[in-house]
């Protein structure tokens, strides 16, 4: 059965992930975006010294987890090839952000910046566009076939935001004209190991441990109709793919800029070390963003996210009371962004010297996951059955995080794909894990 063959190729790719993790420092990566840094995991920021970005539309193809490819639009930094999703723009609070849109598509497009105030378009207040009394766009457009428009605003609030097309957004956003905008507070914690999430409150995260979960959906018939220049009846819209950072599982756990995903540069693997009051006291940060059309109930196993803010608003009331809360289902609504800090704690401290209080069955009496080291204990690798696929490197844990609207954990008929990723918990430092 060809599908069998396909699936095993998928797992081969996942195996490639770990090999790639081993060699990332020397890997030649396609320069799909202008990135401040290109870590193998974690959010990939596109920055600019003066917070000015030239985004040009590109078209290309995106690989789905059923090996289908889907035609997609997107923004790329001018001169760079097509990518999906569009670049993660990172700026500092207070920056005057300038986004120059160059439109190569054959229809008008525009950009809107939900959550931002006082946006200008070519120097004038950005406002909905009407023609003959009919709404034509939510913002002034970059005209079809070579038009341009310059949007600018002051990023007054820190947090995670979405930027997206404001012209026929029901179609253009679904075609890929969206991306993330991260605004960082300018205040310093005074500790080189930590960063503030917002400009108020005391929520910090460990520097370098910032991850993105950008959730989206695809109806391939819409994309096919657009590719062919045919009309599409939006009343028939029905997503068949659900993606995390533009990828489905297991592509989602491949490194950033994985060579075999040339137009999907952003991975979703979150790699952390266990909480330790001295060595690793600070949590990681996840930026959840939903550009789909329904709520996506994202469920990280093994820990609750502490929801510290939504849509760039920290969960602090006017009196300064901390209103953040823990959740095991991060139920991100359409167009919303949620910021969550999280860690993983070795609560029971199981080890060879403090063994799990059960009789572990014989090897032949268990089925082994390929992301299981063979040992219950963090940092150890146990024996696995002969012929077993072993994907672990150093006794690390792989703890899944996935959308719990489970029919969406599927790629048009290939179950157990779609919006899922892992939290990879490495043993405490120093460890033997390839970095």
């Amino acid at each position, binding site marked *: *059965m060809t599908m069998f063959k396909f699936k095993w190729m998928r*797992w081969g790719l996942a195996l490639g992930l770990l090999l790639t993790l081993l060699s990332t420092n020397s890997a030649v990566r396609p320069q799909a975006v202008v990135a401040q840094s290109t870590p193998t995991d974690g959010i990939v920021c596109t920055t600019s010294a003066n917070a000015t970005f030239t985004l040009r539309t590109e078209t290309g193809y995106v690989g789905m987890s059923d090996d289908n490819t889907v035609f997609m639009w997107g923004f790329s930094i001018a001169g760079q090839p097509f990518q999906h999703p569009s670049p993660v723009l990172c700026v500092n609070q207070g920056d005057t952000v300038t986004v120059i849109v160059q439109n190569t598509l054959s229809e008008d497009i525009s950009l809107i910046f939900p959550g931002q105030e006082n946006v200008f378009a070519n120097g004038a207040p950005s406002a909905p566009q009407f023609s003959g009394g009919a709404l034509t766009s939510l913002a002034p457009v970059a005209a079809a076939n070579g038009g341009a428009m310059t949007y600018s605003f002051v990023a007054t609030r820190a947090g995670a935001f979405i930027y997206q097309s404001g012209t026929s957004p029901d179609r253009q956003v679904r075609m890929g004209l969206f991306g993330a905008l991260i605004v960082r507070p300018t205040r310093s914690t005074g500790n080189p190991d930590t960063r503030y999430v917002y400009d108020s409150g005391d929520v910090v995260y460990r520097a370098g441990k910032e991850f993105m979960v950008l959730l989206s959906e695809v109806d391939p018939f819409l994309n096919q109709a657009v590719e062919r220049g045919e009309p599409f009846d939006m009343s028939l819209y029905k997503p068949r793919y659900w993606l995390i950072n533009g990828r489905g599982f297991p592509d989602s756990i491949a490194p950033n800029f994985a060579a075999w995903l040339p137009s999907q540069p952003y991975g979703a693997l979150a790699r952390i070390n266990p909480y330790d009051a001295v060595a690793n006291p600070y949590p990681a940060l996840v930026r959840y963003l939903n550009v789909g059309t329904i709520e996506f109930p994202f469920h990280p*196993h093994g820990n609750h996210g502490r929801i510290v803010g939504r849509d760039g608003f920290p969960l602090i009331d006017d009196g300064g*009371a901390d209103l953040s809360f823990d959740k095991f289902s991060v139920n991100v609504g359409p167009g919303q962004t949620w910021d969550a800090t999280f860690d993983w704690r*070795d609560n029971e401290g199981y080890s060879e010297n403090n063994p799990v209080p059960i009789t572990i069955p014989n090897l032949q009496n268990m089925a082994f*996951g390929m992301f299981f080291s063979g040992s219950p204990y963090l940092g150890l690798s146990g024996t696995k059955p002969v012929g077993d696929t072993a994907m672990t490197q150093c006794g690390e844990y792989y703890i899944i995080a996935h959308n719990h609207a489970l029919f969406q*954990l599927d790629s048009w008929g290939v179950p157990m794909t779609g919006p899922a990723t892992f939290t990879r918990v490495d043993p405490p430092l120093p460890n033997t894990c390839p970095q």
Partner: protein
Amino acid sequence: MRKPISRRNFFRIAGGAALAAAGISVLPGIVGKGWLSPTQSAGAQDVPPDLFFAATDGWIGLPASPAMPPYHPDNMAPTPFTTYVFGFRNVTGLNQTQVMAQKMRAQHSAPMFWVNQETTMRLQLTNLGLAIRPDLVDAHTLHWHGFRHVIPFFDGEPMGSVSVPIERSFTYVFRPHDPGTYMYHCHVEDIEHVHMGMTGMVIVRPTQNGNTSLYPSGRYVYNDGDGSTGYDREFGLLLSEVWNEAHWDDSHIQLPQWTEYRVDFGLINGRTWPDTIAPNAPFAPSASNPDAFTFAVARAADGDLTPPPGSPHLQYQPQSSLITCNAGERVLLRFANLGFTEAAMTVTGIKLRVIGRDATFLRGRTGADTSYLTSTVTFNAGESADVIFTAPAYRGPDPYDTYLLYNRASTHGNGGQMTEIRVHPAGALPPQTLPNT
């Protein structure tokens, strides 16, 4: 010719490799580091599990009308049942013969169980296989959904851990530190296994319980310190859904296309209205059938379930959702959703206070009260909500006042997620001893 599924094939391969390992293990001198023989841990010997669950398939009874040919009722279903399911059974205290006899006798929803905070609980899971689908050699697991900081070994997510092959057993050990309402489900092929019915509720009781100075009952949802989460009665309401085609597909060796998912039946504790208000299956607690961690549902000599009185079609749907209380009492509703769509449970005439979500007390870190009043509680797939209401005054003239609690988001017509809240005059009902009674 079944599914293009990676993990299922993966397990087949893993099983083959395991057989090879078994062959090696009989050779003298090959056994190394104890891994090819059971690993005995200190203190593990002779510690019986607190709960022993079996995973298998079975039939449940949903309203036969309106029919949805060919999917509903399932033409393979024996009378009085309609729908093929996978599920868990509580087989604690049964002997080996009785345990094996529970194959093809799954229940839905799975047994609700409860455990005290900071208490170590052992839950042994065995896999009896699927009687209707011997070609499906799926392993099973028990994933405690929402358990904080679990190690993968006890998380039941099969890629990062181990799972339980047919006729094997594995014991999960939990020591919960955080009270609240959780859920559990099999995580193998979890689109299918969750949807097929391997879903249940877990309750973690706070260490504050027993302190009657904060609330007379001494029963609380969280360690609130002030009695604000005290309650007199509690009812667990686990929501699940049935897409007839998917269930029929599994009994007929077919494959659903999950992106076509729809909800044909909405269930509370495995039943649709009006079965939701039918009584619990009879209880028969004993030394071998304890109710310390779950309901001691009466079992026949061969270990089979006993139907609720007058409802033979509910033999494998033993859990009632009928909510009964006395006027003035504080009633806790524990909601959890293991369907795939968002629920909106609503009631008219009673104010609902949401005091917890996802096993988190709605009180900010600096003490701010973030609980809220509502008449409709929304929660999505994989979310839980803790709701307390004060039963309104008895109005009469019937022996009790009836309020309907139902899922307003339900768009399907064939039975529904609805149950009744019955408010009796003050003092009419004796104190509650078990949830959902």
